């Protein structure tokens, strides 16, 4: 029994089919509890007032926008090295979700930034790196759509995933070494003291868990669709060859 068994499309479909109802159920519970708690049952924030509540949507979205590309990087790497189709199809399935999360993170950030900073958008390093990430997502999806041969498309998009990782991630983290922009540092971090009071922290963790599960559920569902579409294509090619 090894992890690579699930690279087998049949086994993947079976396992993901069993997991999906559980993941979806947990997603609904975490998102409902986290968001309702966060949006309606937390006290007013000291300096920002009620607009601060956008943190329950903005922070999880921004985290998953980056992590989705991280996941695409890993699955593309597995495709390039081990040639498992399910792996690269999972990356293909994750791209539109990651792009949506990135766009929503930018929009919710603009809604928060307009009254608090005094501007919805500035070319601050962190904001700029998210704009770059969004362009990489669109480029990745466009490349998949542009190439007929699925294996060739998988190879080229995987290379783009590698390039995007270096640019999007390094530009995101490396700028912090010598530059500080308008955007505040991470409110949640594992190594530093706590920046967010407990009353805000617990619903925030729940809503982050909700968005992680939402991403997982959507990726499982979309990967199933991609795997079946690939199977269908193979069957139709065989039919065509026989006729």
């Amino acid at each position, binding site marked *: 029994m090894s992890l690579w068994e699930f690279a087998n499309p049949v086994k993947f479909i079976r396992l993901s089919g069993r997991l999906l109802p559980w993941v979806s159920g947990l997603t609904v519970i975490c998102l409902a509890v986290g968001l309702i708690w966060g949006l309606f049952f937390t006290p007013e924030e000291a300096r920002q007032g009620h607009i601060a509540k956008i943190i329950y949507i903005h922070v999880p979205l921004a985290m998953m926008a980056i992590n989705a590309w991280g996941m695409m990087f890993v699955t593309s790497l597995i495709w390039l090295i081990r040639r498992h189709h399910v792996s690269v199809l999972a990356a293909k399935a994750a791209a539109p979700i990651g792009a949506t999360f990135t766009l929503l993170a930018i929009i919710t950030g603009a809604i928060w930034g307009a009254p608090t*900073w005094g501007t919805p958008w500035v070319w*601050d390093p962190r904001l700029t790196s998210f704009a770059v990430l969004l362009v990489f997502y669109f480029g990745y999806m466009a490349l998949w759509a542009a190439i007929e041969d699925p294996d060739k498309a998988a190879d080229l998009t995987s290379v783009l995933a590698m390039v995007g990782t270096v640019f999007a991630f390094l530009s995101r983290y490396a700028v912090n070494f010598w530059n500080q922009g308008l955007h505040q540092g991470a409110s949640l971090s594992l190594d530093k003291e706590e920046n967010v009071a407990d009353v805000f922290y617990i619903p925030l963790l729940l809503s982050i868990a909700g968005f992680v599960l939402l991403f997982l559920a959507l990726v499982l569902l979309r990967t199933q669709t991609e795997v079946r579409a690939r199977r269908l294509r193979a069957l139709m090619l065989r039919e065509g060859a026989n006729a």
Partner: protein
Amino acid sequence: MIGQKKKRRVQLIVVGMVLLAAASALIGFGFRQGIQFFRSPSEVVESPPGPDELFRIGGLVEVGSLIEGSGETITFIVTDNAKTVPVSYTGILPDLFDEGQGVIALGHLREGTFYATEILAKHDESYMPKEVIDSLKEQGLYEAPDS
């Protein structure tokens, strides 16, 4: 033979990633002045930009320096706890703008005064409930986090 091919792919990927990382590090290093979002008061005092150069200055609004003049014009002093620069601004201020808080202003430096055309407030990463801050202030225990 297949193992050989796989090894070759891994080598290619590693070399490619290292080259890309080096290239982006070089770009970042080369443009580090250009991608600097704002300058501190110390940098501005040490090498004052010309009157025509548009740039951003960032720091804290010095406590007690905020003066509201006629109409919408305000003046305050921006500090990084080492050097200070006086700022003049006419226009609407963001919600979070206040004494002792972080600020980033865009404008020109003329005869030692920074004439801002845009003021942005910088928020720090702390989130505290209003009631907690109010009670801490009542007890005189509250310390503003430095942003």
